[in-house]
């Protein structure tokens, strides 16, 4: 009888451990992105593929975790983005939202994430306010921001003689932030801004604005826009003889899918700052090959690479905490452990939520220089990690001030 009882106990104990092993830590990740409009090629389905790769590489089973992935299209509308985020957090038990191109949507989702104490990893949006006045303990800004673009591209152009600027700016949070940050850089380096025009998002015809830029006689026409807007500006700029007339474009935010859409003939010579280029080294090339299995014929943008890297780092932090429940705790853990992956190299997450890694200044090749598909950039300079992003002392981030 005694033997039977102890056997039963032993069995029960065994069953609970089995049950424990069968109940892995649940994690649900939501990729909230632009699936169908002007930013979809730089983010969109390619970002979802990148998140899938991150989950695969992390190997959740080995960490006794179960990771689910959902995705949705925010249509570049903050109200749509916020209602999806709320639905995900409240009803679908999503623990973390990643990507979110379009700064207007990202700023709105950042507020919801803080309110619900979840995690928000920004790769797609650019506004440096996300780690500035609008920083939260639940948000990490991963890939790039307007400060990085302004300083990388803006400074190098002013230093090579582009002293007078005219901005064609996307009329919403992102464009305004990018213009503001670039203006500061231009003026700090002895340049002058002659004028600007605010253009509604997703405009087809830029010729009116190009004429205004032409009339300003500025040496540099700064494009504080992105995606389809940048493509249309440059394409039509070539037509109106902007570059032949001695003026130059500064594409402040250019991604490799945009360069592919323009063709090297139209895009050649553009200066561009990015923290990732698929053809940087063996690690980025190998990753790109695996990504291309899911996205044949395309080349990953820095944003898509950032989704991979951010998701991977998030899963490491959840594994260390053994829970994804407390968003603030997960973000704190992500700030504690250094970042390291084949795409961005070694780095870290700062107290204000800014991920720190090197950035690179590229120039778009001419058709003659390009030897194989996707061979689009020449590396002009490396901006070391400690110079690539805004110093925390200039952030105005309440998190940093509070800890002082």
């Amino acid at each position, binding site marked *: 009888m005694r033997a039977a009882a102890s056997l039963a106990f032993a069995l029960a104990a065994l069953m609970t451990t089995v049950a424990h092993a069968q109940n892995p830590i649940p994690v649900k990740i939501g990729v909230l992105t632009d699936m*169908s*409009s*002007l930013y*979809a*090629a*730089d983010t*969109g389905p390619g970002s979802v593929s990148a998140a899938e790769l991150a989950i695969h590489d992390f190997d959740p089973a080995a960490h006794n975790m179960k990771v689910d992935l959902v995705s949705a299209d925010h249509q570049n509308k903050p109200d749509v983005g916020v209602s999806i985020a709320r639905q995900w957090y409240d009803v679908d038990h999503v623990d973390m939202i990643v990507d979110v191109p379009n700064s207007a949507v990202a700023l709105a989702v950042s507020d919801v994430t803080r309110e619900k104490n979840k995690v928000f990893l920004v790769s797609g949006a650019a506004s440096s306010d996300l780690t500035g006045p609008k920083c939260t303990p639940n948000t990490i800004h991963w890939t790039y921001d307007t400060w990085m673009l302004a300083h990388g591209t803006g400074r190098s152009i002013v230093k090579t003689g582009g002293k007078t600027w005219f901005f064609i700016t996307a*009329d919403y949070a992102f464009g305004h932030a990018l213009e503001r940050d670039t203006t500061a850089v231009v003026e700090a380096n002895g340049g002058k801004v002659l004028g600007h*025009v*605010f*253009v*509604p998002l*997703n*405009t*087809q*015809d830029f*010729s*009116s*604005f190009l*004429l*205004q830029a*032409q*009339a300003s006689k500025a040496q540099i026409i700064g494009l504080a826009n992105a*995606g*389809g807007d940048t*493509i*249309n500006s440059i*394409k*039509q700029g070539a*037509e*109106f*003889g902007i570059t032949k*007339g001695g003026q130059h474009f500064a594409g402040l935010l250019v991604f490799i*899918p*945009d360069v*592919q*859409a*323009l*063709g090297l*003939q*139209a895009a050649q010579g553009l200066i561009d700052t990015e923290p990732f280029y698929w053809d940087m080294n063996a690690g980025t090339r190998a990753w790109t090959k695996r990504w291309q299995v899911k996205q044949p014929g*395309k080349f990953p943008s820095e944003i898509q690479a950032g989704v991979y890297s951010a998701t991977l780092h998030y899963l490491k932090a959840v594994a260390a905490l053994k829970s994804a429940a407390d968003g603030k705790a997960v973000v704190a853990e992500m700030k504690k452990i250094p970042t390291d992956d084949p795409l961005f190299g070694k780095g870290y997450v700062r107290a204000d939520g800014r991920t720190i890694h090197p950035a690179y200044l590229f120039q778009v090749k001419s058709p003659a220089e390009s030897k194989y598909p996707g061979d689009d950039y020449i590396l002009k300079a490396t901006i070391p990690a400690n110079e690539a992003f805004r110093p925390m002392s200039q952030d105005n981030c309440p998190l940093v001030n509070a800890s002082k």
Partner: protein
Amino acid sequence: MFDIFGIPSQALFGQLLIGLINGSFYALLSLGLAVIFGMLNVINFTHGAQYMMGAFAAYLLLQYLGLNYWEALVIVPLLVGASGILVERLFLQYVRKLDHVYGLILTFGLALVIEGLFRNYFGSSGEPYQVPDALQGGHNLGFMFLPNYRAWVIGFSLVVCLVTWFAIERTRFGSYLRAATENPTLVRAFGINVPRMVTLTYGFGVGLAALAGVMAAPIYNVSPQMGSEVIIVVFAVVVIGGMGSILGAIVTGFGLGIIEGLTKVFFPEASSTVIFVVMAIVLLIRPAGLFGRLG
């Protein structure tokens, strides 16, 4: 040089011309819509997708068959027009006699399907397409630099618009067509094959959209969503001009291009909404549109 409301007249003339160029796209697209609505009573929401198909067809012909812009200008409207005929035979002929809403929903659904297919296959960043060699460069008009290609767009679309207007309003075939929309049974009694005429008219309207697509390929980003971006504006143009009025579509197309162009100078932030403001005002004052008749 003198100033007008603080804007140098030089800049203003340039903007007027640009407005006229954009207006020629609106005119071409709204012309097709007006023809289709006037003759078939169908609100063709697929129009934007068919415009996009035109641009993509030009790109594909160049990429895979090596056919240049000029060849595309002839072949693409025929190809896409034929696809329109197929759509009319397969779907539209069954909803034509029903309430407008059925045709609207059918064509809207089709537009989403077509756009989705293109996005799935080509992605959304778009494909490059160069301005044809013969139209490279431009002329300095003194007050602005006019690219040759834009000059061609404005001239060619004006010709297409006038020829279409003439064909429908002034020829024997056009009079059959107009009679057939008024009273199909009577026209059939005269031995005219009305269903075939209607099918061909739809094909023609779609062909016009495709033609605009080819013309747009060298200047706008050739991407799956290029149609949905422009179609709403074009609908506003048609509503302002008066649904189904050919002349209304042409005149308002050019006119609104100019209004939009001026807005881009005086208050750029509003340039994407000004057309809808005009639409609201026109609907309040003349519900049938500027050139429309209340039926």
